[in-house]
């Protein structure tokens, strides 16, 4: 009798122990399933969208994006003023911001981050965004000054980019393994391929924000779209990124889930050519032939399920700077003729490496079939994401590739880094001095009508004539989550705004 009682109590013990342990982490925890693992923790060297998450969570920048990406909100910079001629900016640094190590953040850290960004140069994105910066210095521990070479309407918004994160000089050697920043979350660990863990920074300067966000964020790479969605549906994760078009209707019909989209998208898919070596170097006719050969409508219907907007203008139709230009049409006959005139030896297949991610891969397959129809052979080489970024994008080992741009919404931001000399989004290494002047002009005035004219000329020269890039269509990016995530916004760039969402989990 007694024995039975003991066993009974013992069992209760065991069961409650298991129940308690299965509750798990004591605070609120948000799990995000992402389409891939992060590639680079150093925000000033990062090249891909997946690295936005650590950058936004661990570090701050002088300003952060608002939801339109045109009107930045104060962050490290509490306020700012610009001189009459638009060239001198003074930022007031907020007092009391500390790095996760406890040290206070001052203008010296801003200077250091700028310095580092410029030193990194073409290997990162900072120098490209800050191309109009002439000089910068700290006026006092809480005042930072930047002098521009000429008026640059994009300058302020550009201070919100990943690579403009303010980094910690003291721990800079460990930035890729144990990063320290001043952001709302501290880095806990990164298990490559498994998960990344971030814990709330209790000393974050924006205390009000802290109560609205989860105590812990865990990101888990789940590359297979189907699996990622299934994880969301079964509750394994609370939010997932980049939901493929196939699944949109399914999610909309699920009352437990929400689909988050963008108001306007600055994201687009394109085919780009390398100007550094043959066959595309110096062979404009070949590039134009391919432009006429690609069946954008087919890609639009099959790869993108009819979402997004087909076009050749790098600006979407809803953009204020959009002008109608004379796009090339889908014309295989003309393509064949141009191909013949280009003199390219069609027995030689073109090297066409691509990321193995489905939207890249399928686009490439359609393009391959289109080119086969005009007699051009291509050699698609699917590459795993990390390898693709390293070899094909950064080391530029390609003749032709599918590129997916997620840009800023300002027209300059939209494609200056694509077409300007040696910029982060110009692996084609396309360079045209006339275009450079046009771009400089385009961002030197605030008047939208004048700016429109500049961009129209750029389109006519670069896009319609020289063709380093063939835009296929804009890409709508959607995320999905359960009901615990509220107020979630996706920037036109396709990145999540981690500073505006609320967690009720």
């Amino acid at each position, binding site marked *: 009798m007694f024995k039975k009682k003991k066993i009974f109590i013992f069992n209760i013990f065991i069961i409650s122990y298991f129940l308690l342990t299965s509750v798990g982490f004591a605070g609120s925890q948000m799990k995000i399933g992402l389409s891939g693992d992060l590639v680079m923790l150093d925000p000033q060297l990062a090249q891909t969208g997946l690295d936005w998450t650590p950058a936004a969570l661990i570090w701050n920048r002088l300003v952060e994006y608002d939801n339109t990406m045109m009107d930045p909100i104060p962050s490290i910079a509490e306020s700012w003023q610009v001189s009459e001629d638009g060239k001198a900016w003074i930022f007031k640094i907020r007092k009391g911001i500390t790095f996760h190590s406890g040290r206070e953040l001052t203008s010296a850290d801003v200077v250091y981050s700028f310095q580092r960004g410029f030193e990194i140069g073409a290997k990162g994105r900072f120098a490209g965004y800050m191309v109009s910066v002439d000089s910068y210095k700290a006026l006092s521990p809480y005042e930072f000054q930047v002098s521009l070479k000429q008026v640059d309407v994009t300058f302020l918004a550009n201070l919100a980019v990943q690579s403009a994160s303010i980094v910690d000089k003291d721990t800079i050697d460990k930035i890729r393994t144990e990063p320290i920043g001043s952001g709302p979350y501290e880095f806990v660990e990164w298990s490559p391929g498994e998960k990344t863990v971030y814990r709330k920074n209790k000393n974050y300067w924006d205390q009000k924000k802290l109560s609205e966000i989860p105590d812990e964020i865990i990101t888990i790479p789940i590359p297979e779209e189907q699996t990622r969605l299934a994880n969301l549906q079964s509750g394994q994760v609370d939010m997932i990124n980049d939901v493929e078009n196939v699944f949109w209707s399914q999610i909309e019909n699920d009352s437990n889930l929400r689909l988050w989209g963008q108001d306007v998208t600055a994201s687009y898919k394109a085919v780009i050519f390398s100007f550094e070596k043959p066959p595309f170097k110096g062979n404009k006719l070949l590039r134009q032939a391919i432009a006429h050969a690609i069946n954008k409508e*087919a890609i639009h219907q099959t790869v993108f399920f009819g979402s997004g907007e087909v076009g050749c203008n790098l600006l979407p139709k809803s953009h204020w700077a959009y002008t109608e230009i004379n796009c090339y049409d889908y014309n295989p006959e003309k393509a064949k003729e141009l191909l013949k005139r280009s003199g390219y030896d069609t027995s030689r297949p073109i090297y066409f490496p691509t990321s193995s991610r489905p939207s890249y*891969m399928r686009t490439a397959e359609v393009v391959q079939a289109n080119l086969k129809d005009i007699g051009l052979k291509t050699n698609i080489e699917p590459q795993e994401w990390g390898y693709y970024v390293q070899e094909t994008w950064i080391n530029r080992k390609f003749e032709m590739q599918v590129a997916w741009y997620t840009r800023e919404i300002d027209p300059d931001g939209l494609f200056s880094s694509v077409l300007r000399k040696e910029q982060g989004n110009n692996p084609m290494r396309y360079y045209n001095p006339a275009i450079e002047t046009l771009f400089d002009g385009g961002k030197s005035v605030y008047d939208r009508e004048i700016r429109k004219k500049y961009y129209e000329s750029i389109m006519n020269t670069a896009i319609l004539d020289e063709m380093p890039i063939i835009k296929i269509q804009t890409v709508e990016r959607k995320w999905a989550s359960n009901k615990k995530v509220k107020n979630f916004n996706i920037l036109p760039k396709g990145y999540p705004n981690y500073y505006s969402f609320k967690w009720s989990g």
Partner: protein
Amino acid sequence: MKILFIRINNFLKSCISNRLAAFGFFLVIVMILTALLAPILAPYPPDKQIYQDARQSPSIQHLFGTDLLGRDIFSRVIYGTRISLMVGFLSMVIAASCGIIAGLLAGFYGGWTDTIFMRAMDALMAFPAILLALLIMSVLGPSLANAIIAVGIIYTPTFARLIRASALSIREKEYLEAARSIGMPNWLIMVKVILLNSLSPIIVQISLGIGYAILVEAGLSFLGLGVQPPKPAWGSMLGEARNLMVFAPWMATFPGLAIFFAVIGFNLMGDGLREAIDPHRIEDK
């Protein structure tokens, strides 16, 4: 030669009694014919993309439905037969040639050659095949040809073992003495006697091996490490279909079934051959 014919005759006879083997044989014949007659049987070219027809479930125009890019799955499965057969057959050619040479040398010369070869073969053989294939593919790079080579290498030890066993047993027999005494050179003896005697087990192994090769290649292609797109390999079709399974289950069903029937066909046929040709079989594995 005559022995071979008699054996095949036996096989066919027992086929009629052994229905499973007959079924396997039938499947294999169907596969071979499909591969040969692919251009006639397939209603569309395998990589023709008709985007207006994309993602359609099976219908009269598209018996197995279409895939994401509007390609006809029925045609792709048919052309996929060619790839599978090519992989199966060529990899067995590689495996058999390398294995036979290794086994002959080991079995005939014995001693150190034998021990070293056989230990190496044992190690190779027991080691997980997929792992070996992955290792080889990671060095050579993903492609159809490399997949064939990888599977060939993996299957070599099986043949080597077989020939060696045969060579060892033949070594002692009298007619070897007899042949030598009339002045036949060594290598001729090896080839004639040993090979002819082991012809039947070799054929059995080839049949089983083709089934195995098809499975391994499908796995590699599924992982993206084998045949590259747009070639219509069944394994890569399954890999592509993965994300769309909920909406388009036909994309995954038919290639999977194709793999299944192909492998089972060769397995059944191989088993049937084995029983027919050598009822008191020397069981290797």
